[in-house]
């Protein structure tokens, strides 16, 4: 079952306006992604760690999530240092690792983890429903918000349907192997999933029409920007400016 493991009602982050959290996380991602100096990236990593501590999310779960991404980063570490041209650092048989290569890998690792931490701390603490409403209030195009909310709603249904199909194949003795029969079976499963998804989409749309849907999506939620949100926005903007200054003052 797909879950939202970081949704946490008790997190202090939940008391902040989700719009400003989304905005700040996005701004942070841009600033960090565009920075290249360690003197900017390391403070950014510290900021993200501080936000993570404030959010009060279980450290172990967050680290587990980070491991997934760092698995990919590991591949970078295997390839980039020995292929990047620059000052040799050490030799490994026929391969030469360069100082520049190591630096590039380190920068990517820090950027990636800092951005991820900030998004977990600021955005993943809210349920997708709240985020959708917040995005709608931020004047993100309605269609994109609807796409997000509908995917979120029906991904569970599709998952159960897939499991039902897969189960019915396995109770009839289907064991995946490397054979044309396996490929064909999976193709059928996926094809059937698409057929069902499209049929369901039609029924959902019909149900929406029956309740007066005319293309416009209205939101129930109203967010208010409080004094606390103001203080937080000022602090976060300050931190972002400092990171930016460290990068571009040089």
């Amino acid at each position, binding site marked *: 079952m797909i879950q939202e493991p970081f949704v946490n009602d008790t997190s202090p982050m939940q008391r902040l306006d989700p719009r400003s959290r989304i905005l700040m996380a996005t701004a942070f991602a841009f600033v960090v992604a565009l920075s290249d100096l360690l003197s900017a990236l390391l403070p950014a990593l510290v900021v993200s760690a501080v936000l993570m501590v404030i959010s009060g999310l279980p450290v172990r779960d967050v680290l587990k999530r980070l491991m997934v991404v760092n698995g990919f980063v590991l591949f970078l570490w295997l390839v980039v240092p020995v292929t990047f041209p620059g000052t040799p650092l050490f030799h490994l048989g026929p391969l030469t690792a360069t100082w520049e290569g190591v630096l590039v890998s380190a920068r990517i690792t820090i950027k990636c983890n800092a951005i991820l931490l900030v998004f977990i701390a600021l955005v993943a603490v809210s*349920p997708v429903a709240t985020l959708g409403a917040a995005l709608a209030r931020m004047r993100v195009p309605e269609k994109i918000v609807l796409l997000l909310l509908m995917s979120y*709603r029906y991904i569970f249904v599709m998952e159960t349907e897939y499991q039902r199909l897969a189960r019915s194949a396995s109770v009839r003795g289907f064991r995946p192997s490397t054979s044309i029969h396996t490929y064909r079976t999976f193709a059928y499963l996926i094809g059937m999933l698409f057929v069902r998804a499209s049929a369901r989409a039609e029924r959902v749309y*019909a149900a929406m029409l029956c309740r007066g849907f005319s293309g416009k999506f209205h939101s129930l939620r109203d967010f208010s920007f409080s004094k606390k949100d103001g203080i937080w926005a000022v602090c976060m903007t300050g931190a972002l400016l400092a990171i930016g200054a460290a990068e571009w003052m040089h």
Partner: protein
Amino acid sequence: MDALNPVIELEQIRFGYDAGKPVLNDLTFSLHEGQKVGLIGYNGSGKTTLLHLIMGLVTPSSGTIRVLGRRIETRKDFLKVRRTIGLVFQNADDQLFSPTVLEDVAFGPLNLGKTPKEARRMAMETLESLNLQGFEDRITHRLSGGEKRLVSLATVLVMQPKALLLDEPTTGLDEKARVRIAFLLNHLDISMVIVSHEYDFLKEAVPRIYSMKDGRIQYDADTGALHGHIHRHPAERHPHRL
């Protein structure tokens, strides 16, 4: 009861999905204010099609549809119909698409142009009337089958329709949920058409049951034949009649 104003009138409706045998063949039907009717029939007898036709989701090849005495033909007419008549779909997962229960129930009123505040109040009242208070922040896809069905009913009732169409409201439900829905429908003060293939359920929910056969509603149906299959009567005190 028939002296009251008709809400839905169908005359000589013909409809087929392809060139073959028509699903509905010269079907004539009317539902009056306050009337509750059950429609029973085999799979593929055109029950669901009939409901979709009333809502304008499919178009008949011939015949006339009247709602509240007015003839319904254009797409615009049907837009109005959808504010007057509520359809509860067979599969609650098709009906409930919002992340939370409150948002889903408020979807209809918001479409009708209510303010968020009004929509919220209407949604809460409807949930309360169905004994679903405390459900507003539940995530729709995590509800049980019976809960989903009740919430779907709420999403339609909140629009205060003049008539309610229910498509197989008990599919996949256990006995307890079935009894609860039957009780609820029995006590709702609104005209309705319930389509089902469960005679026992229909009998609990509505006073009048017609059967559908060969694309038509059988008004002179032999109730004995309709009743010929073996089934339980959960409460013996209910007289054995239609």
